[in-house]
């Protein structure tokens, strides 16, 4: 079992539903983006293109973050999810520096309200501080995309996959030769392959989208 994802860039139009779904699902506070969709352009007018590149933790097979972590807080789970154990994270930030995908965020401060100077909304209060979840947005720890581990454990899909209106994200077990994701992965490519981290988030038509 190795969870992985293929993102079909020909279907993604950059609507950012995934970003907001991630916020909603994981209660990420202001300034913390586990999921990002970079909007940019390639080419010269009129042969130019508007581009959208969704990105988050690549859940690498050989994660640079895991190697950089001095406390063992970051681990590659047997199911392929790169996981941070908050109890062991000391917030040194080495992993964030090591990650070639800039997927990790160090919480230097406790969460702030989105509507500052107004107080936290009721669900922010609960989402940031009161629930007993697998992720806490505590001060001084690193956080990032978990592939929505809590959803996987309930037999569901990551929130970004479930919500993508265009169906650009395909998720599943890369080890299952009958899975859609394994089939798509055959022709998909990772970002920054030269980093050697072997991402399990792959893209179709990546070179074209990067303007190569």
């Amino acid at each position, binding site marked *: 079992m190795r969870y992985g994802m293929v993102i079909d860039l020909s279907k993604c139009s950059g609507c950012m539903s995934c970003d*907001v779904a991630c916020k909603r699902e994981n209660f990420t506070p202001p300034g913390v983006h586990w999921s990002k969709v970079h*909007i940019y352009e390639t080419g010269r007018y009129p042969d130019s293109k508007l581009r959208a590149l969704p990105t988050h933790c690549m859940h690498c097979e050989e994660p640079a973050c895991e190697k950089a972590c001095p406390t063992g807080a970051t681990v590659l789970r047997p199911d392929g999810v790169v996981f941070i154990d908050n109890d062991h994270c000391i917030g040194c930030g080495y992993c964030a520096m090591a990650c070639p995908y800039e997927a990790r965020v160090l919480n230097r401060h406790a969460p702030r309200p989105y*509507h500052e100077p107004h107080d936290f909304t009721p669900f922010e209060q609960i989402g940031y501080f009161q629930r007993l979840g697998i992720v806490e947005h505590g001060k001084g720890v690193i956080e990032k995309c978990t592939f929505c581990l809590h959803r996987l454990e309930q037999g569901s899909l990551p929130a970004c996959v479930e*919500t993508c209106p265009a169906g650009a994200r395909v998720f599943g077990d890369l080890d299952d030769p009958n899975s859609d994701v394994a089939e798509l992965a055959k022709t998909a490519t990772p970002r920054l392959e030269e980093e050697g981290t072997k991402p399990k988030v792959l893209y179709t038509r990546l070179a074209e989208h990067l303007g190569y």
Partner: protein
Amino acid sequence: MAESRSSSNIAEAFWKQRGADSLGQTAAEMAAAGPAAGADTPAAGPVGPIVPPGLEGGQWKPVMCKLCGNKTWCTARAYVKDGILLSFAGDPENAASGGKLCNRGQAAMMNVYNPYRVKAPMKRTNPNKGLDEDPGWVEISWDEALDTVALKMREIAERGDPRRFAHCFGFASWANIVSDEAFCRAFGSPYDIQGRGHLCPVHIGASFVNGTFLDKQDVEYANYFLTIGGSLGPNTGSAHGMRAVARALERGMKLVVVDPRMSPEAAQADEWIPIRPGGDLAFTLAMLHVMLHELPITDLDVRFIKERSNLPYLIGEDKLYLADVASGKPLVWDSVTAEAKTFDDPTIKDFALEGEYEIGGRRATPAFALLKARMAEYTPEWQEQHTTVPPETIRRVTRDFVAAAEVGATISLDGAVFPLRPAVIKSERGAYSTTHGAYQHFAVKIVAGLVGATDVPGGFLGSEQGPLLSPGPDGVVSPKQEAQPVPWHMPPSIDLREYYPHRHTSPYLAWKTILDPEKYGVDHNLDMLMVYGSNPIHSNCTPRHAIEAFKKIPFMVEIAFLYDETSQFCDILLPESSIFERYGLLEYGDHVVHAADDAILRTRTLQVSKPVIDPAWNTRQADDLYIEIAERAGFLYGEGGLNAHINRTLDLCEEHKLDLDNKYLTADIIDRVARCHYGEEHGLEYFDGHALIPELLSKAQSYNFYWYPWGKTRHPLYFNHFYANGQELKSNLAGIGLEAPPGWDPEGFWKHWEPIPQWVGRCDEAYAAEYDLRAMVWTTPQTRMCAGDQIGNPWVREPVKAFDPYDYRILINSETARRKGLEDKSRVRVEAFWGGSTEGVLKTTELIHPEALGFPGHHGFKGQLRNPITWEGPDFNDLLSDREGEFDPISCATDITPRVRLVPIGRGEGGVR
């Protein structure tokens, strides 16, 4: 050529998965049978709401989303624990949305707990009104607020002129059971004025040609899709449209996008054709030229032209149908027997399309020949001066479009044989919001019609399904919706609807008239304006005219969700509950302007929302407020009262009609609607577990050709009724001594009223030397129809601010900027030719036409009590003129591509207030 084609048929698969066994039933059968069997069962498999960890013990509840203005709202599930909304997900029972939610829907929770909401009834204490004035709000009781409003209405009624009350409404009202129209009519005022719409005139062509409110396009079968100034879905972040487009592109549909900017759809397209802003009509007319003058007529759908359109009808020298003297029916020329016959004469051997004939001393020409002659001058070479599009591109695109239509192909659906025309041309707001917008809508309808791609599989469809192509006595689809002109009446209404009888909305004309009623011949003014779910200041061209008008209105009240620009001019605010705190109802949510696949075409719904949380603050259901006000002001009860109008507008059956002398609340009325229209088992309690009752059309029923097949109706591609309405208007104006409506040069007005679309020039061409760019605006995937406070929702805005470098900026082609000595992040004032201006920060880019200046989204809000994140960016509407001669006198569209110039004022980011 007969062809059977299979499709993946998403609606069928969806409902089968849920155990539906009623596919293929008629709509009536479906209604009688109720929802699909097994609809109680949540979706099997991995998709479905998941409780966030640590938050177990709550409940998922069905609810409408309503975070955009689209009438095909996605239903959803809200997770509530201990009375607090904690999560939100798509509705696995909604086939059209596929159980998805867009970015705005995902952010709905932020909208509910928005601290910038109006949290209690408020009274103004500062009598001075202005955007820079603090209203000095003080909280009051509901009784005081409602009594104050009711008293003002009572006073107006007692003075005997209910026209002095107007109600301005927006998209929010679409979930209400008390319609604006019902409220106004019950009071006696004709003024239920839409605060929106003049920036979105997308109705006129559909209402004439398809008998529907809007257009939609069939991407279930289309193989070629040409879009001019519109969105299939991705541009506006529509969950339905993105799903449909992704499926179609995966299937191999070719997409060609004509747009001054490289949009998300252009990025996904096979071809992007950059065009000068506002040149769309020239592009489309040149396509018609190629179809009619350069391609053999056999490439077109000659059967459709002869048997399914009014193009064979003989047109007299008065530009109207030549009618048979005896029967009054329009005449055609039988080219085989060489005689004139009524259009429905069964002895007709063949319809003449060309030639000139004399019938009883009257000269006449087939409409087709007139159309062809009119298009002669619009060559691909001619259009280039208005579009910058190379002539060869027009020729290639036209040929590709015509070839893709597969003229002659048929498809069998549920045993009914349809023409299959898998080629779509669509145009929309970006092209219709010009001074010639109505002609553009007519022109694209003609392009589609010439290959028969109208209301058949693969083609350009009307937005609703059903027997809507019913013909009038002339055999042609009878004018419906906005194709029916406003009756003449003098003195005119305050929004001048009589001068512009086909207008979609004209709120900006009302605000102008308030400032100078005599100029427009209006004999009254307003004593009171009530606003609901609309922001007629920010959503208006020339916002300063709305501001000045609102200062003149003695009393204003708003049923308000948040403090906005308009609320700053109000005397009383009645705070409204959010969709999570209130009831909502939407029947037949099938209005879609964008691409539609099988699931969208076939699924119609009754959607009902019940409160899933208690109001976060002291707010109330808008409908209940209308009922309360009507009771206190004395127009709720009895014949002609609000109850009676609710019975009428909701079409309540005898058994469930409101007693005219009782008072009801929203919940009870929705219960009656659901039971009355969908059976007793679908009372309000049904919606504890569901947000919708689905109604499935068969595949055949989802194309309106089904209801009126060959020989039963004809589409008007020669706009005879339209021209006749113009002639009647001319006569009526002459009767009061006018050659054109006040402010208009007669020639400039009447050139818009021809029965064949024509190039009318640009109103601002004389300013070309000094104002060398054209501004343009578009909806971003995060700002669809500016509804639901998308600009003030930090979950929507934060990712945009962080990762989209284009939003909030003014886009300029890099080379254009270089020539002007401007660079990225230059701060500029943009000045329109007529005097309007706004300020902002440039973004140099390769993604836009060199003559265009692009404004993404809606920005630059100015309300003092708003969320400050809404203040940032330029307000595009400040560039839009409301002067006569500078808007479309047919749809009343304001021209959103005005000539502008740039004045550098420094460098830097940040907002402009």
